[in-house]
């Protein structure tokens, strides 16, 4: 299973939990599996063209991912930038 670190902005989808598990070999598969248990989360992170949204970053095994095709070994960390005021 992949460890997924969830930022405070998205913990309303995980009952306040900061770390959850999901299955998948790519970032896209992990987010799709996450969506089956945490409905509504994916659209906040990924747009309808499968792009990672502005101000959101996904780190896969410690490296910033630019595509849902990025292969995952152990960990996905979602970051919501502290932009705006």
């Amino acid at each position, binding site marked *: 299973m992949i460890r997924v670190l969830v930022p405070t*902005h998205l913990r309303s989808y995980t009952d306040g939990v900061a770390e959850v598990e999901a299955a998948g070999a790519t970032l896209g598969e992990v987010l799709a599996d996450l969506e089956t248990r945490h409905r509504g989360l994916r659209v906040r992170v990924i747009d309808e063209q499968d792009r990672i949204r502005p101000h*959101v970053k996904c780190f896969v095994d410690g490296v910033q991912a630019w595509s849902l095709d990025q292969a995952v070994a152990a960990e996905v960390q979602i970051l919501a930038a502290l932009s705006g005021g």
Partner: protein
Amino acid sequence: MTTTQLAVATRKGLWFFRSTDRRTWSVDGPHHFGAMVHHVVLDPRDGRTMLAATRTGHLGPALMRTVDHGKTWTQITTPPAFPKGEPRGRAVDHVFWLTPGHASEPGVWYAGTSPQGLFRSEDGGDTWAPVSGFNDHPDQQTWVHGDQDQTPDGGKTHSVLVDPRDAAHLYLGLSGGGFFESTDTGATWSPLNSGVAMDFAPKLPDGGEYPFGHDPHCVVLHPQRPDRLWRQDHCGLYRLDRDQGPRWTRVGEAMPKEVGDIGFAIATHPRDPDTAWVFPMDGTSVWPRTSPGGKPAVYRTRDAGASWQRLDRGLPAAQAWWTVKRQCLAVDAGDPVALYLGTTGGQVWASVDEGEHFTQLAADLPHVYSVTVGTPA
């Protein structure tokens, strides 16, 4: 006893104000705390279904639905979205505008988005589909000045209007892009901007008018005389009577010159088509978009725009530099009509006598994005 419910959507969440006498109000909020809430609309057809268009600065949009007056909210899981893989690669940044459909189509809703797009739901907002007749119209990219050249917070689709006589007859406004009409439920669209100034664009060599490209800020139609439209545009204040021709009349010419006829919001009386209210703002020099001179006032016409009366009793007399955005001037159906204003300074003002006197309902909310009135069932 009838309850009047205001939904006050702000840059940091949503508040409800409820009253049975329009003088004493209870406050319920915040809902969606920390989210930018662009528009919140209660379905007048059932008095229960309410949609709220939200987003945050960091995440994608979330369209929320309640059927119990905000006690519980559910996120729509098939929200307005452009088709995956479409050639222009558009993605909905946020839903900006929500309109319940015609009375004969109980589950139908329309949503206007940024970037500019129109979407339709037929199941009370649970699932949404693009109105491709608009979104994929071969001229749509030209109407909106191209996908890369939009207003600072993104181009807006707004003023989605449904003719109460005909469910297939729709209007919508684009900021920027102009005002458009469809008579076939959105399959085809035509611009409707004749007579409206476009001061920001170069003059056409033949001296003619641009058919589109305008910047309507807010357009309303009169519910009992739907051929009458009122338009607060970036370039003035207009009225159009469809039964008398296709050309808008600049009724803002009758406004005091030192105030001008620029603003965001406009509202019309629910029963009297000759009555409308506007909130002028400073559209000079660098367009500060504040109340002119720091002296906020509503202006009202009782004679279809031939003359306008200043209404400022109860509002600050000076040094009040806020404005009222396009979704922030609302009227109820009472007699007399009550008028509600939400300001960029986080205040909510009410007048229960059609604008003669204003009292403050809230002083310190966040920047107000929309104020809508409903009657909960």
